[in-house]
């Protein structure tokens, strides 16, 4: 990858990370406030209490997994490898 391509890729990754945040916020609203009226219980607590805690957590892990698998790419971080050991 050239420097230009790397920067384009980094911008792409940053954008997708922002998008993931947006999706997570929507899920968070749904899993908490959205489900708070639901009757019934799971594990002795209201449904929303479970979905808004562990549910959001698992959803976030899934999102990050998708990000790193589909959007993020490996690249060499050193533009000039020898820059490290000057002098």
């Amino acid at each position, binding site marked *: 990858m050239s420097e230009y391509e*790397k920067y384009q890729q980094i911008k792409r990754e940053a954008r997708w990370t922002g998008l993931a945040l947006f999706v997570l916020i929507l899920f968070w609203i749904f899993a908490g406030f959205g489900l*708070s009226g639901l009757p019934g219980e799971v594990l002795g607590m209201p449904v929303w*209490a479970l979905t808004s*805690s562990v549910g959001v957590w698992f959803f976030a892990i899934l999102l990050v997994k998708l990000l*790193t698998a589909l959007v993020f790419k490996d690249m060499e971080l050193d533009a000039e490898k020898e*820059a490290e050991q000057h002098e």
Partner: protein
Amino acid sequence: MNNGNLAALLPLLSFMAIMVGIGIYVRRVQARGFANNFVQQYFIGNHDLSGFVLAMTTVATYSSVSSFVGGPGMAWQIGFGWIYMAVVQVTAIFLVLGIFGKRVAMLSRKFDAVTVVDIIRERFQSDGLASMAAFIIVLFFCATMTAQFVGGAKLFAAVTGYSYEMGLLLFGLVVVAYTSIGGFRAVALTDTCCAVMMMIGIVLLLYYVLQAGGGYTNIMASIHANHPEMLEPLSAGHMPVGLYLTQWILVGICTIALPQSVVRGISYKDTKSLHHAMIIGTIVVGFMNIGINFTGILAHGVLTDSLQSYGGVDNIIPKTIVTAMPQALVGFAIIGPLAASISTISGLLIVAASAIIKDVYLHEQQKKGIVPTVGKLRLLSMSVTAAIGVIVFVIALTPPSLIWIINMFAFGGLETAFFWTLLLGLFWRRANKLGAILSMGGGTLAYCLTQGMGLKFMGLHQITIGITVSLLFFLLGAYVGKPQDRQVLAKFFPEKPEKKAAAVSK
């Protein structure tokens, strides 16, 4: 004063001894690196962190003693709404690493940068801005560190029965010692141990809280019967929607700009480590936040009286530890929260020291054309790190009474100062020096003033004012002021390859 619980002290002492051991070990291992490029090695560990360590050190620095004491105490009072709010912190790791991780890593290699301020200086070509940034970092970090010291020592006193001063002396000096001896690498490794101990501590406490409370079903039944509001997101008005919104900004989105998190983008080895760290970090931060706050809720099985009778939210967790844990294990239970405290202190201490040594001292020397010897740098870096630690330690001995407010205040101040400067600076060509100066100075000032006067917008935390003002100032500066030089921009925003061929060879 001395009728403390000795059994509670031994595990803690051994843990602290291991931490200092790591500091000394790391120093030996890095001897060659120290001789080669001391500043690089001491302040950032020479780009060498693996994904696991990167994740752990970022989480441990981010999670403070208040996430372990004040937070779950609030969960005890408010209920599941508090977990719902705390869970927004699962964003804290993947956002900062995903947005800034690679950007900062590549730029730091290009400019031989060791600190976030280095990068800001290169981007905006302004010594004034860099000095302001260094000043803000040192100031707000000292406030945060003091709060960590105080929180840790108070917890120590409440749980072990020994004095506040003794607690401070015990873990305070230890953290200052291993940080100044081993530098960033020691911070990263000890942070990793701390994060592991935090998780073990949570599991341990949860287990004993369940035992002491007569089992999960029992505790939940009692909450259903006595505190039904704890099962609602708004907790009968204790948890207003505005607070959720503020927390998203304050402990979620804007945390990407915290210099102590961003600087970790300089420290890792390769992109595989970064991707790894994003996943591990999200898992760990979620586990901790849900685990400890859930434990706080279940502590209702142990502490059944009213909040007043326990003397406030901050006493809930210490009381729970003492009541639920067997005497012999109290010493292990306290390691978790203290680990949260020292790992935040060490992370801030090394960055504060780097701001003074690298961003101020070395830069001044460089301007005069002086290259300090490695020996001199070593002595200075270590003494500055130790000195900051000792100063904060002394302040914590007679803590200002508003310390908890100061902690959150500092968090918001750092975010206001750095959010737009970093985000726009690194991803927007039009971002310029005037905008950054106005944004950092004006935003931080507006934030501090509104905090000081208690002014609020729609009842929301002042971070909303700070972050808005600093954005407006930034845009104003960007459109009124001159753009940065083309040469500077070319280094930050590479042009299409055909134009670039000549620039690569300089």
